[in-house]
Every structure is written in C-alpha cells, then in structure tokens.
C-alpha cells in the first residue's frame, strides 16, 4: 500500500497536470573534453510521467549527458529546458531536480532521515512539513524504522532505497538516475526494477534512467534512446527500437542478435540473395544495395523457428537450413539452442524449453523469413 500524499502537494500535482511544456527539452546539446566529443548534438523531449531510458555502451556519453541535465557540466553548445524554463546557465542547486547516483553517494555522516530530508532542508521547508514528507517517502520506499541508521549500517538494497527516497522526497520536476542498480546483485536488481516502476507510476515524475543494461532499459522504460559515441542512434518507443532498428548499431546491440556477414549475389526486387559462406540467404535489401555489396545481417534469437527435419513445409520465401544441434542451454521458460549449419556457422535460437523432438548432436532444421532480421550495408572503417 502506498502512503497518501500530504495534501500540500496536491497543488503541485495540479500544476504538473496543467503543464503542457515537456518536462525536459534538450536542443543540440554538445560537450567535449579535450579531444573527446562526449555528447554530440543531442536533442530530446521527455514528457511528464514518462519513464525514459538512455541506453548505451560504456563511454557513450550517458553520464555526461545526465550531468549536463543536472547542471554539473556546462554544455559547450545547445540548451536545456526543464519544465519550460531555460536552465542552461543555471547552477545545479537552482534546477529543482532529483538525482540517484550509481554508488548512491549518501552522506556518510548523516542518518537516513537527515539524508532523505536534505533536499527539503535546502528548500527551507518548515520542519513539520519535512517530517510529514519524510514519513510519506519512507513508507513509499518501505524503509520505515530505518530513520536513525547511518548509511554504513544499511545493505546495498536499503542504501538504494534511501538514495531513491532522497531523490524523490521533494517531488522534483524530473528525476535523473545514473545506473542506480549497477551495484546490486541480480536478485535485488529484479526486485528494485519492479519498485522503480511503481515509484514512477505513483509519483508521475518523469524518470531519466541511464543504463548500459538493455534488459533493464527494455523492462523499465516506456521510451528510450540508444546512445553511441555521444550521439543518439535512435529514439522512440522501446518496442519500436527493438523491432525496427534504424541503424546498424541499434540492430547489433538490442537483443544481442546472431551476426551474419555476407555478400549480395543478386537482387530480386526488395529481396537480396546473400552468399553466406556458401549458403544462399534471402534478406530484405537495404536501401541502395546492389549485387557485390557486403552486408551485415542481424537476426534475433527468438525470431528463428527450430524443429526436427521436415516437421513442416517452409513458407513462401522462407530461409530454411539444416544443421546439427550442438547444445541446449536451459534458461527457464525458454532455452537457447545452438545450431551448427552446413557452412560451419553457428546460430543461437531461443525457443520453448519443452521440445522433446530435439536432441543434442541430431539433425535439426532452422527457418526464418527475410524480414525477421535487419540488414545493413557493411560500414567501411
């Protein structure tokens, strides 16, 4: 059960609802360190109530972008608007945001209660109101009874809850989270993922969530951006990014797909026939592709059909190959099947765990339609 909101907040909530400006707007934001272009012309709008993830590999500029939003870095170019207000030149303490850091950064000399009310104290909220807010947020993050502990007396998960409480207690216009779950073990991470969504939904504060863990981003967010070398590769609804990657990087990154390299033998309208180390593979032709072009084709594990030999007829235009089942790795509801094809290439297929007809070292058949994967011209570099 979530605690009731103290009523002085209702007017804030009303204001939020009435607000038509995006909660966060970035325009052409840039930041360089010496020779490194950490953030490169990034534009973004995030609306009230959104759970937005910034996903990217290490060094892609996620933290730098978050720090720019927080005011901890000044962008070399571009503007930052929070709630319709231009905050580009404002220091962090004038921005009214909340933040959760990777290693929590709780104040070690303050007890939990004082850590949490710190933002309210800085706002000079009357003490009874501080107390009211504290109790409300403690029950939201389920940390009642821990008020008097010092941070070093808490477990990792509890520290994380306190860090979240401190970030949320003043009901900021926006909450920034920099890999908040990275230091937690898997089980705790799963639990906190659920909690995180609950807080976000209940408070209706937009979350900007930085992570390099795609599962986390895909689980948590409504929309997300994939970042690479300081640039946004693609921004949109998470399913859209997952299903229709627009760039080679996004296709190669999301879902950690099978990676197939080949050369176009001939074109058949919108389909290209690829020479995949001796096998003919039908793929959707990338724009401007002609025969002879080198191609990267990314095929997600769960998009492949696997069955024993000739269990079904191939659909029209389907790729069908025979191979040998090398191994099965049990992953719970689904399993990963490792199939070695006649050309020596190995494909990973995700399928249901209960498949008694498939036996290790026996022949199997795999199949998929060309559109199941995403094809890109090989990048020369």
């Amino acid at each position: 059960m979530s605690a009731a909101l103290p009523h002085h907040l209702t007017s804030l909530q009303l204001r939020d609802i009435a607000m038509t400006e995006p909660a966060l707007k970035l325009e052409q934001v840039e930041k360089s360190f010496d020779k490194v272009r950490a953030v490169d012309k990034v534009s973004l709008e995030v609306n009230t109530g959104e759970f937005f993830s910034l996903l990217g590999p290490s060094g892609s500029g996620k933290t730098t972008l978050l720090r720019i939003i927080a005011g901890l870095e000044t962008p070399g170019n571009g503007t930052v608007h929070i709630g319709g207000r231009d905050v580009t030149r404002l220091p962090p303490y004038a921005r009214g945001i909340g933040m959760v850091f990777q290693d929590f950064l709780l104040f070690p000399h303050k007890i939990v209660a004082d850590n949490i009310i710190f933002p309210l104290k800085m706002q000079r909220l009357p003490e009874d109101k501080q107390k009211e807010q504290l109790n409300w947020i403690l029950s939201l993050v389920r940390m009642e009874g821990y008020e008097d502990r010092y941070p070093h007396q808490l477990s990792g998960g509890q520290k994380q809850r306190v860090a979240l409480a401190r970030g949320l207690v003043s009901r900021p216009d926006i909450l920034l989270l920099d890999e908040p779950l990275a230091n937690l073990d898997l089980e705790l991470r799963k639990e906190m993922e659920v909690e995180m969504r609950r807080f976000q939904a209940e408070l209706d504060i937009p979350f900007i969530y930085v992570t390099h863990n795609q599962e986390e981003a895909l689980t948590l967010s409504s929309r997300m951006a994939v970042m690479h070398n300081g640039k946004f590769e693609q921004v949109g609804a998470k399913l859209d990014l997952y299903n229709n990657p627009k760039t080679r990087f996004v296709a190669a990154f999301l879902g950690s797909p099978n990676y197939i390299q080949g050369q176009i033998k001939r074109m058949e309208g919108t389909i290209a026939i690829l020479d995949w180390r001796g096998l003919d593979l039908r793929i959707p032709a990338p724009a401007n592709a002609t025969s002879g072009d080198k191609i990267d084709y990314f095929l997600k594990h769960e998009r492949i059909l696997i069955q024993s030999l000739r269990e079904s007829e191939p659909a029209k235009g389907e790729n069908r190959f025979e191979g040998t089942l090398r191994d099965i790795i049990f992953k719970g509801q689904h399993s990963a099947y490792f199939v070695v094809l006649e050309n020596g290439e190995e494909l990973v297929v995700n399928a249901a765990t209960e498949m008694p007809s498939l036996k290790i070292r026996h022949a199997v058949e795999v199949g998929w339609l060309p559109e199941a994967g995403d094809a890109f011209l090989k990048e020369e570099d």
Partner: protein
Amino acid sequence: MAAVSPKERVVVVSQSSLLVFLYIFLYFPIFFIIYVSFVDNTVWPFPPVFTWEWYERLWIMSDFHLGLLNSFLIGIGTGALSSIFAASAAIGLLKYQSRLRGLFAVLYLSPLFVAGILIGISSLMFHRNILGLPGNLTSAILANTTQALSFAFLVILAQLTRYDWRMDEAAMVFGARPARCFWEVTLPTIWPSVLGAFLVSFILAFNNLEVTFYNVGAIPTLPTIAWGTLRHGIEPELYSLATVINGLVFFILIILFFLIRLGFVRLGYRGQ
C-alpha cells in the same frame, strides 16, 4: 615454543637492543630533564634529593605567567590561521583540477625546507619594513603561520585526497549552494584532519623559538624565557620550565589520543 636457532637468537637480540638504544636516544634527554627538575642536587642527581624548589622559583618568576599566556595565544592564533588557510588551500588544490597542481602543492610545502631562523629573520624584515608591523604577538602569529601552514597543509591533504568530491555534487543537485555544501557535507567529513592540523600548528607555534624570537619583540613567551635564562648559564628553573612546556604538549597529545580512542575523532575518514 618452537626452537630458536642460535643464529636467529643473535638477530633477535641485536634488533631488540637497537630498538631500545633508539628509544633511549630519543627520550632520555627529555625524561632526564623532567627528573632533574624535581631534584635538589641537579649537577649529579644520584641519589635524588626531591624538591619543588625549581617549580616555586618558576612560579614567582615575573615573566612566567605572561610567557605562558603569550605562548598559548601564539599557539591558538597560529593554529587557527594555519588550519583555516591549509584547509582552503587543500580544498582548492583538490577540487579544481589544474595542470599546475603539483607546482601549487610544492609552493605550499616549501617553507618546510627553509631554516626556521631564515623564516624568522625574513618575516621580521617583511613585517617591519613593508607592513610597518612592530614586533608583537600579531607579528609572531603571522610569522609562525608561514611555517605551520605547511605542516597543516600536509595533514589535511592526507585526508582530503580520500574525500569523494561527488558528495558535494550530490549536495549541490539537492539544492545546496557551495557554502552550504561545505558546512553540511565537506566539513563534517574532514573536520578530524582540520582539528589535527590545528593541534600540530598549535604545538609548533607554542614551542617555537627561532621564528617567534625575531618577531615577538620584547614580549616574553615560554621558549624565549628559556632562551633568556640560558644566557645566564643553565639555571635549574630551566628544567622546570622545559618540563612544563613538555607537559603541556604531551597533555594535548593525550587529549588527541583519547579523542581517537573514544571514536570522537577518526583520523582518516574511511568511507562507507
């Protein structure tokens, strides 16, 4: 107990004797002077004939009370100035990344390598000729600060290098202006080192002769009284005076020790 070979025994015995010799070398003069300050037969104090006479003479010595007070004032003034300046210097050095960091650090530390007497004389000239400051307590405090600042800087820097400046960033994001950050977050974490720096500078200035001597004018302090007494030959009052000075310094060290022992002061903040 495992058998010890003769060779090992030789090693152990020689190492222990070296250790004992070192401690005697370090502490014998100090303990001897304390011992002598309580005996009547100071020239060859064995067997001892105990007396309070040297303390009584010290007590009625006209300059003693004033000297004690002045030494305290110089110690406190120098301690306060040094720890404040050293804290600002160390914070500035670590917080604002600069290529010239190393140079700045060396500049703060170089008074360590200048002979005290040179600092004393040059401060005297600077204070008198440039600042127009006569020899007095203020002048002595300023001169002592030039030297004590370096030690204070080292003490604070040692702890501050382990301070996580992102803590300040967190505070700032949650609405704290820089001054507030310092009071709410930085100082509560680093104050043991600032206190340590204060005590070190206090003791240095309290004990100091050569810098103080040139800058304090005609005003007595405990070390200058000791120096003055010495010029008439070694009088037994000197023993009691030295004992008093040492006693006060040890007293401060003992306070510090208990603060650490009881957990009021943690030298070196060890993170979460």
